């Protein structure tokens, strides 16, 4: 959802390239005529949407039905972008935009496509255009159906915006690709099935790390080594980070972080965390799919209580939270974790059991 699909990228350029000719055509066609700015803006945005759809044709020639739909949609947008003086322009434009939005949602629900940034940006463009098409303007010479237009604007734009965002988000969470199986995290690309050598290397990394962090079962030793809690200790578990070890790369003797369960008996060591220094810089992966690193991205972080939520498809976070991404990390769990020794998360039941024990 937050990536740009390679076969969609070209559409961003065709969309932007459409702006100068769309403005030029408006200038030529408007000579001496007064048309509301909202209509002109809608005309330009429809030309951009049309160009985006036509730009997608070339990369979808292998899918004839999709390519034909893109052609029809693109041409319809381009034609309507120039018909703004037509009596039925508003109703035709509103109908086309609504059908395009609903058609796209149906398309992704049926699994023909996955939402990405180009698609989302186009949907936002179309929703804005719908608002501009419907909004009545003060002082219009003709005042056709102002009440209906206000009602349509008040219902259609909110409804379609909420529907588009919800469907896109649900589909993205329900059908993640191999790199996004964990919400809010992207996994390192690896081979699908671990080789015997990778199994052995993963076990070696696990054994070395477990042995190296064993002294830190006493949190006082970790404190003396420079580890400090990275958040409140009223949470089930806390990452303790050591800034002195930031430059080490997957060194079992110098892990960047330790994870402790906050039990009623005090901190209980759950495992270690290796972390790289820069976004997108995944670390060495000796165990292939067994030791794939993960990068938390597009999470909404709030300093109030050090809590997280996920950024919405419309790229917004709740008030008081900011969008952050964290450099790649790899956990090594020394307690029995049902998700695996190198899983993205510790199972909450394990932490609960430790707390109760």
């Amino acid at each position, binding site marked *: 959802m937050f990536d*740009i699909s390679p076969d969609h990228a070209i559409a961003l350029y065709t969309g932007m390239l459409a702006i100068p000719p769309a403005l030029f055509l408006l200038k030529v066609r408007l000579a001496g005529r*007064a*048309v509301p*700015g909202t209509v002109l803006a809608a005309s330009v945005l429809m030309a951009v949407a049309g160009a985006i759809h036509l730009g997608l044709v070339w990369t979808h020639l292998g899918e004839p039905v999709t390519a034909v739909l893109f052609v029809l949609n693109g041409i319809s947008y381009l034609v309507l972008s120039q018909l703004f003086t037509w009596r039925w322009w508003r109703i035709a434009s509103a109908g086309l935009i609504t059908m395009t939005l609903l058609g796209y949602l149906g398309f992704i629900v049926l699994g023909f496509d996955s939402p990405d940034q180009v698609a989302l940006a186009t949907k936002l463009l179309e929703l804005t255009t719908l608002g501009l098409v419907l909004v009545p303007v003060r002082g*219009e010479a003709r005042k056709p159906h102002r009440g209906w237009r206000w009602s349509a604007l008040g219902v259609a734009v909110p409804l379609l915006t909420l529907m588009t965002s919800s469907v896109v988000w649900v589909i993205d969470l329900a059908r993640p690709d191999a790199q996004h199986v964990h919400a809010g995290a992207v996994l390192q690309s690896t081979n699908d099935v671990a080789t015997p050598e990778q199994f052995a290397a993963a076990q070696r990394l696990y054994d070395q790390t477990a042995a190296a962090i064993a002294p830190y079962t006493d949190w006082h030793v970790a404190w003396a080594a420079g580890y400090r809690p990275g958040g409140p200790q009223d949470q089930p578990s806390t990452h303790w980070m050591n800034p002195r070890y930031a430059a080490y790369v997957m060194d079992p003797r110098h892990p960047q972080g330790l994870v402790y369960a906050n039990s009623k008996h005090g901190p209980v060591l759950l495992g270690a965390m290796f972390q790289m220094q820069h976004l997108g810089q995944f670390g060495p992966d000796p165990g292939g799919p067994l030791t794939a690193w993960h990068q938390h991205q*597009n999470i909404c972080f709030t300093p109030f209580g050090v809590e997280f939520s996920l950024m919405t498809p419309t*790229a917004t976070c*709740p008030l008081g939270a900011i969008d952050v991404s*964290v450099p790649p990390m790899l956990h090594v769990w020394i307690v029995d974790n049902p998700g695996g020794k190198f899983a993205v998360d510790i199972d909450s039941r394990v932490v609960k059991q430790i707390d109760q024990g």
Partner: protein
Amino acid sequence: MIKAESSDRAEAAFVLLIMQSLFWLIAGISAVPFAIAGEVFMAPLAVATMLLALLTCLVAIGIVWRRRWARGLAIAIEAVCLFGSAVLLLIPLGFNRGPVSLMVNVLLPVAVILLVRKDEGAYS
């Protein structure tokens, strides 16, 4: 042919503010499941975000009614948004730089400010 006798910048700003209000409403709703799951601070943040969405919606209505207070509030809201986005874009926290984020967090506030900045006399 359609003729315009007065400025329609306010109506364009109205549409953009309504879109922004909806984006905040979605952000507020999105925090609710996390609050239910035990992230207690997310609950007040969700409520605050939904109240901001409501305020933005009221500002949008005020703009279309050409109210001076709405114009001032719209400029203030968008200026704060732009400042926040600029800070997040400058500091290396991994702020999303995708087209949707740039449209919503940069382009939209800039467009609203430009639309309501002119025509001061149209507001009362």
